[in-house]
């Protein structure tokens, strides 16, 4: 369970990205965070795994006060929280399986990391993760030869390989074409249902959020202005989240 209690976040340059965020997300929920660019969507995600520090307030994940974590404790905490990026963040020169195997690196000893020695069990588990997202056949292909959708799946397999309880996805489909974007969204839905992993994703396209996610959180200028089931959101509420601007939809061509 993720719980925000009166969370504020101010960047060193004085910009206040989050104002009094209160939020409760149960294990296994599938949540979309929508809003304009710069509204604070990314900041919310990055506070959960402490890629950013919270300035004020309390943020707990499964009863652990995230802000109090330090060094090795913080790294152990992050093992349970997967993260997916807009630009995939794969080592494109390496093969898919090597990228998936890096999920095991934080638990390995110095010399194993140094020489890149992985056990048979680790390799089998990595292959299973690739199988879960349906690209087992590309295991030994270099990532720069894969399409955008396939690369995002490799990234998803890497995250699954760390066996997380929560997946944070920062604009996971923003660099993909409409068809691939839908496929990747379906992958997220399946993983959410099959493995009971909580998924929080930032998403630019309102139609994808409404179609695939259970719960929608609307963020506007650092404040939560909507929080409820995807089915109940009205056009007025959407307009309010997007500050009167037209909500971006898939295939608009930005």
């Amino acid at each position, binding site marked *: 369970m993720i719980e925000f209690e009166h969370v504020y976040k101010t960047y060193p340059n004085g910009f206040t990205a989050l104002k009094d965020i209160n939020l409760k997300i149960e294990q296994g929920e599938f949540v979309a965070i929508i809003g304009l660019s710069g509204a604070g969507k990314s900041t919310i995600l990055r506070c959960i795994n402490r890629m950013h520090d919270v300035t004020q307030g309390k943020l707990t994940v499964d009863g652990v006060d995230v802000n109090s974590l330090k060094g090795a404790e913080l790294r152990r905490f*992050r093992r349970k929280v997967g993260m997916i990026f807009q630009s995939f963040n794969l*080592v494109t020169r*390496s093969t898919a399986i090597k990228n998936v195997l890096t999920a095991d690196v*934080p638990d390995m000893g110095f010399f194993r990391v140094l020489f890149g020695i992985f056990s048979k069990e680790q390799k089998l588990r990595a292959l299973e993760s690739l199988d879960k997202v349906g690209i087992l056949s590309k295991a030994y292909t270099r990532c720069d030869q894969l399409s955008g959708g396939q690369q995002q799946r490799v990234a998803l397999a890497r995250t699954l390989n760390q066996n997380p309880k929560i997946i944070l996805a920062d604009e996971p489909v923003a660099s993909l074409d409409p068809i691939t974007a839908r496929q990747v969204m379906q992958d997220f839905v399946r993983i959410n249902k099959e493995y009971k992993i909580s998924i929080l994703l930032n998403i630019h396209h309102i139609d994808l959020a409404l179609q695939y996610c259970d719960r929608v959180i609307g963020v506007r200028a650092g404040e939560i202005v909507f929080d409820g089931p995807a089915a109940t959101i009205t056009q007025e509420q959407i307009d309010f989240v997007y500050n009167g601007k037209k909500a971006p939809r898939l295939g608009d061509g930005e």
Partner: protein
Amino acid sequence: MDNENVSQVKLTWFDKIFKPQVITLPNGHSTIRRRSRAPIIIALVLLAIVLSLRMTGFDLSIVIKKFDKLLDLMVKLFHPKWSFFGKVVRPLIDTIKMSILGTVIGCLLALPVSVLASTNIDKNRVIVSVLRFILALIRTLPTLVIALVCALIFGLGTFAGTLAISIFTFGIVAKMLYESIETIDMGPFEAMEAMGANKFQAFWSACVPQILPVYLSHSLYCFEMNVRASAILGYVGAGGLGITINERIGWRDYEGLGMVLLTLFVVVVIIEFTSEYLRGRLS
């Protein structure tokens, strides 16, 4: 409207001295044409040439008058004394050994330093600037001067040459490498940190796979240069082919010199082709 157009173009100090020409079309639209810098640049280059000619006392007529001397010499060079080959092999192998060892030592030292001199990995501006300045200083020193100083300190021989090549390699490879490291994708590093890896683990599994091929490629390139450079180090007593070259020229044995140069040529060509092939495979 016209004024808006004109002010959009950024004016440099040059344009302030030589005012740009404003061209107005019959329909009232206008554009500006900056004065060309070419005349000034050409004048400066001509001035530099004239001054340089006076300073060096270069006289083409002497070169033409005495050109037959060089032709005579070239003819001898192109008739290498094959029997001399036996005496070339040992110093040639010395030269290659010096290059290999020097390259390896220099490259090994360059790796950690270049990582510390890259702004995207090392956030400490002071360390970055200090390291870069030291590297720049090392690169300004001519290899022959380094070799000479090494020979004076450690005695004549291959050790001085190896040391000189190591220092030279270190300076060049470290610079090429930090420039390459700054272009790598830091996304995977961020992903590793988000997965709970510490700085070393994240760097080793996210950055090193990107750096390694570039590093090897730079090292091979530097090895090519080193074989050529180390051939002359013997001139100041640092071992290798240079001693033989110096000796042959001293004795005016140009047929022998031809043999030395021919062997060097063949070896350099072989190494260059192999290295180019390997570098092609790396990228």
